């Protein structure tokens, strides 16, 4: 029975990610007033967080594979392969953000809540793109440091993104909701 080993190896990291999620959750509770004032805002939150998690971890694990395939390394990081990956992640963020905004609006209407469609779509788009840019740069930074120290990026990007991804995304949603509320 290797139970003790398994608990010892995974428990600290899972608790650490949980502490990161508390920071994200606290940001959510700070947004109480915005959630009251902007119908539909709370609907988009799980979707944006899930989109960000999916796109960033896939980006991170593709960079890990590219490293193992010998396509990128510390001295040859900013090449065409990396740029294609960055464009792919950002285009996905853009498209999925629009889908989230439309779905949140339409399903709210069906449930007799009437959000402002322009507001909701703008909030998702700004939050999706900003968090996408920050997490893409963060991932590249982590992968670069992993190369330099001779670590396997596959072991680092996943947990790092699980911890910081939700925080960055939640703060981006908060920021873009405040911005849109002020502008529109």
């Amino acid at each position, binding site marked *: 029975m290797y*139970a003790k080993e*398994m*608990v010892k190896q*995974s*428990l600290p990291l*899972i*608790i650490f*990610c*949980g*502490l*990161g*999620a*508390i920071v*994200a*959750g*606290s940001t*959510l*509770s700070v947004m*109480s007033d915005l959630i*009251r004032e902007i*119908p*539909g805002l*709370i*609907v*988009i*939150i*799980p*979707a944006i*967080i*899930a*989109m960000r*998690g*999916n*796109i960033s971890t896939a980006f991170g694990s*593709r960079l890990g594979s*590219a490293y193992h*395939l010998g*396509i990128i390394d510390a001295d040859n990081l900013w090449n*065409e*392969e990396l740029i*294609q*990956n960055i*464009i*792919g*992640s950002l*285009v*996905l963020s853009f*498209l*999925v953000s629009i*889908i*989230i905004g439309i*779905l*949140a609006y339409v*399903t*709210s209407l069906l*449930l007799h*809540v009437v959000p402002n469609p322009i507001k909701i779509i703008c909030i998702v788009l700004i939050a999706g793109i900003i968090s996408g840019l920050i997490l893409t740069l963060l991932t590249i930074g982590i992968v670069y440091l992993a190369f330099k120290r001779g670590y396997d990026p596959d072991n680092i990007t996943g947990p790092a993104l*699980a911890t910081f991804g*939700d925080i960055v995304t*939640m703060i981006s949603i908060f920021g873009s909701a405040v911005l849109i509320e002020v502008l529109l």
Partner: protein
Amino acid sequence: MIYSWKKIVKFSLPLLTLTIMIEIFAGQILQGKQESLLLLPMFLISIPVINSVGGNIGSVLGARIASGLHVGYISINLKDKEIHDNFFISLLIGFITYLILAIVIYFVALLGNLTEDIALIEFIAIFVLTGILLISTVAIVSVFTAFLSFKKGLDPDDMVAPIVTTFGDVMGILFLFLLFGLFGVGI
């Protein structure tokens, strides 16, 4: 060149869209219960935490089963001892994690002056029971997803994490409101 942005978008978009549709469903449950949640900020803080821990434990379990299936020390059999051990270890890790995080959240909320009419013990009970229900469900889904994808010749490593985290997000929110009902908390 190996990567092209068009291919990345084309291959990721369908599954991502499906995931988003399920997450919007989770979001609509939150909107329906919005008034309860806004009156109980401690639980608003808890939602990302419950879902993140559930998703992580489910994904770790799935990754371990996937490796076991690939290497051959786990067989596609619900009576497999490795599966049982892994299942109970996931529950144990979940219990310890949810317990510790419940205490942290309670005191973070107190520090933030988010005082509520709820005792520490009651909050811990709701939070940990939600967590245990979620981990049990997510672990079962994780095992079945790993088995099914392996049988169909798909790599369980690609399938388990997205399925388990998406499903876990909806179930985590549903279980939290179920426990609200049982404890008579909220509206």
